[in-house]
């Protein structure tokens, strides 16, 4: 028995149960994935439409987001205030949103309220009204929201990072659009996008919680079974090619920012790549409080309150980024520390022993993610979206465990060390000239920044070489 003076040993691990799912395809082509989880009186569903922002044209940036935002703003049967009243009266959550790869409509409610809440989801997906007044309202609010985004240097750095990495390729333009693209979008384009891409034969429904799989299939059949696909087959534009990654520093001069936001990154791999799990583990080596970014930036140097690494699954090669927020006067140091920290994955690679804990963060996060019904629904939806094998959820933790030090180092050497871009949003007069001594640097005045332009400024050539400044001011 422990006397209290020393750290006791951990007990043997308890067994983790991963929810299993059942799948059926309705006659209209809609895939239905059901799971049962009965600890609380809650049921959730997500309808995943496999087209999102990546299917937009450059001059229609924000279209898929506008379509999704308008779904909850009125159907043929219910006005926007009626939908809102119904959702609240049911204590439900009904949300629609779009990412680059998909548009997702989700609903959850307590068990007695769910059948009615699920009918609301079907109603808004199948027969949205897109009333002109609602289109205007969403447009006005979206443009208003952009000014909040643009006031946040970290958010601007993220958006600029996408442009730097992808230029005019599918993930380059801002998902929320720009004031100019939003202003040009009309009801006809909104209706076009919905009619073309929201269709049962390219969608999947994940549904589960406090009901049996049979009950879930019956509910899906009753409410969505007569949703008809258009006669024309689905075609999706392929988009411009992703430009080759290139080392460069892009500075957006915003002297009014309280601090400088730093984002560094590179285009890496798609979700279906065999390297995906190694990429997730490499991200884990860098991220989290004990990750290398936070250790180097915050713990060792006090450069910032925090530093993060981020890598999201995508159908096309995805952007990997690290980010932090620092005093303008320490932006040069933060840039060099960030680049050195990425190089450290190769210079002093994580050992197999180091990886034990970093992999545990991935598996622990995975298990916590499926603690909630919404989390299980989302995990299953991701598997549908990327056409992963049905047992991938069961196998994910074991695949993470199988990643070794060589795999992480190899992935980092190929993907995270060379050709890394850096974006800095802050007071350029404090750091641009010093960085320009050792890096190719381009400075964009804050008021000239145009996220709607692939080269970030209306006047700059898309294929232009980086502009090297010897000094600023």
């Amino acid at each position: 028995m422990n006397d209290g003076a020393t750290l006791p040993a951990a007990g043997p691990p308890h067994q983790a149960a991963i929810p299993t799912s059942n799948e059926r395809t309705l006659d209209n082509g809609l895939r239905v994935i059901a799971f049962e989880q009965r600890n609380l009186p809650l049921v959730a569903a997500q309808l995943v439409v496999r087209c999102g922002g990546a299917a937009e044209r450059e001059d229609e940036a924000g279209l898929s987001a506008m379509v999704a935002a308008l779904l909850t703003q009125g159907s043929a049967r219910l006005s926007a205030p009626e939908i809102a009243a119904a959702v609240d009266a049911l204590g439900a959550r009904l949300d629609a949103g779009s990412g680059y790869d998909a548009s997702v409509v989700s609903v959850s409610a307590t068990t007695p309220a769910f059948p009615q809440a699920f009918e609301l989801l079907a109603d808004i997906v199948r027969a949205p009204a897109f009333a002109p007044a609602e289109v205007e309202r969403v447009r006005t609010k979206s443009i208003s929201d952009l000014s909040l985004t643009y006031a946040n240097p970290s958010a601007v750095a993220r958006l600029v990072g996408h442009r730097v990495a992808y230029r005019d390729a599918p993930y380059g333009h801002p998902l929320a659009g720009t004031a100019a693209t939003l202003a040009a979008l009309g009801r006809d384009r909104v209706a076009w996008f919905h009619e073309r891409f929201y269709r049962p034969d390219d969608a999947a429904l994940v549904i589960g919680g406090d009901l049996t799989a049979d009950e879930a299939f019956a509910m899906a059949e009753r409410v969505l079974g007569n949703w008809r696909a258009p006669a024309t087959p689905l075609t999706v534009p392929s988009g411009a090619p992703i430009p080759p990654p290139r080392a460069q520093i892009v500075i957006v001069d915003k002297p009014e920012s309280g601090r400088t936001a730093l984002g560094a990154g590179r285009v890496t791999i798609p979700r279906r790549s065999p390297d995906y799990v190694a990429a997730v583990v490499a991200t884990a080596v860098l991220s989290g409080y004990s990750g290398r970014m936070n250790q180097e930036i915050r713990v060792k140097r006090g450069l910032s309150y925090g530093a993060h690494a981020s890598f999201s699954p995508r159908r096309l090669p995805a952007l990997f980024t690290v980010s932090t927020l620092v005093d303008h006067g320490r932006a040069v140091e933060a840039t060099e520390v960030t680049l050195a920290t990425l190089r450290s994955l190769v210079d002093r690679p994580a050992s197999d022993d180091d990886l034990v804990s970093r992999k545990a963060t991935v598996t622990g996060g995975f298990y916590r993610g499926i603690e909630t019904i919404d989390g299980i629904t989302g995990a299953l939806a991701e598997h549908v979206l990327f056409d992963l094998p049905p047992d991938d959820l069961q196998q994910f933790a074991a695949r993470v465990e199988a990643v070794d030090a060589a795999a992480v180092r190899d992935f980092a050497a190929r993907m995270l060390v060379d050709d890394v871009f850096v974006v800095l949003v802050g007071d350029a007069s404090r750091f641009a000239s010093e960085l320009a001594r050792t890096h190719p640097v381009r400075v964009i005045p804050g008021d000239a920044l145009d996220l709607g332009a692939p080269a970030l400024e209306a006047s700059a050539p898309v294929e232009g070489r980086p502009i090297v400044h010897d000094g600023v001011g």
Partner: protein
Amino acid sequence: MTALPTISAAAIRVAPFAYADRTLANGLRAIVIPDRRVPSAALNVAYRVGGKDDPPGRSGFAHLFEHLMFKGTTDTAPETIDRLTEDVGGFNNAFTTEDITNYYEVIPSNHLERLLWAEADRLAALTVNEDNFITEREVVIGEYDQRILAEPYGMLDELVNREAYRVHPYRNGVIGSPAELNAASLADVVAFHATYYRPDNAVVVVAGDCDVEETFGWIERYFGRIATPASAIPRVRVVEPPQTAEREFTYRAANVPLPALEEAYHIPDAAHPDAAALDVLETALGAGRSSRLYTVLIYERQLATSAWASADLREQPGLFSVRVTCARGVALGDARAALREELERVRSEPLAEVELERVRTQIASALVRARQTNNGIATAFVRATTERGDPATVNGDLERYLAVSAADVQRVALTYLGAENRTVIEYLPA
């Protein structure tokens, strides 16, 4: 108009939590809520010390201390808690409110005993030295720069507390001021620890995959041996005198994208019988797209880009706040007048029965959702115990909200939302 779907809030049923609540001989209170569904457990250790307990001229101390608690003990290296959680696939963090400092860990359940040991260890044997103190003070000031200065509207919460309270220490907020933090000495910090970090000022809550008796055995073994000082714990006795006239302030900053406004009204403490009606009022005004503020200010009149209400119920009398951020091109005066009309409307007429039923259903559904995670459950018990003085109130919450009538809501609106009880902050671009 089509008949709208509806359910009765009373149809939503949740089983009461089965929990054990014991107090050790040294005064430490421990609560265990077993749930063996997933092999994971949440541990919360809350100390009854928050922003309001900061020493005079030392605002931000409770929060600074939250940081110092991660810097190691006589037995362990700095960041040991991070190693014991993150490195096994869990996580940990802490937060400081006006009333409490709460440390929490979520871990695979076979690691629970280790975290109980580590939490007891940092209560009993924390290392505070000049190096830790200086480093963490810089980190805290960095957090101030990031959350308060760099964030648009970051200063608004600070301003509301500072102007709504004249004498109660809630006026100092939680993050404090960099100047006062810089004026602090190591001796101040050591004295603060000795005053508030003691077993009889702590609440330990475990929720999740555990055996109740085994868990209490661990708590007794690791926390039970820590002595309680003989001195009394200082408590804030200051009572904010009733406000008698409206107060109004204007603040300007360079990084304000759109004009915003907050109105704050003094309300009673979280254990007061009016607390549930104030929560219902908050939901009716500000929660969801059918709430009054969303419907009128954002949807119908397009005066605002965001609008919310908050019943900030605390251990001591708190604030009921409403906040609007103007839509582009809208004059703040227009948004403010519309907001005022909505507040007058909840005072002049009761909620319709259908609206009240909707609000009750929203609240009941939120209560069910909050039970999805072990940490959500543990934190609910912490707050009930520290803010309302009784963990049993968690199991009474559903009934408490179902019992609120339309007349109750109108009565609290009339009682608390009067002009003389109001502090207004206009937050404008420079």
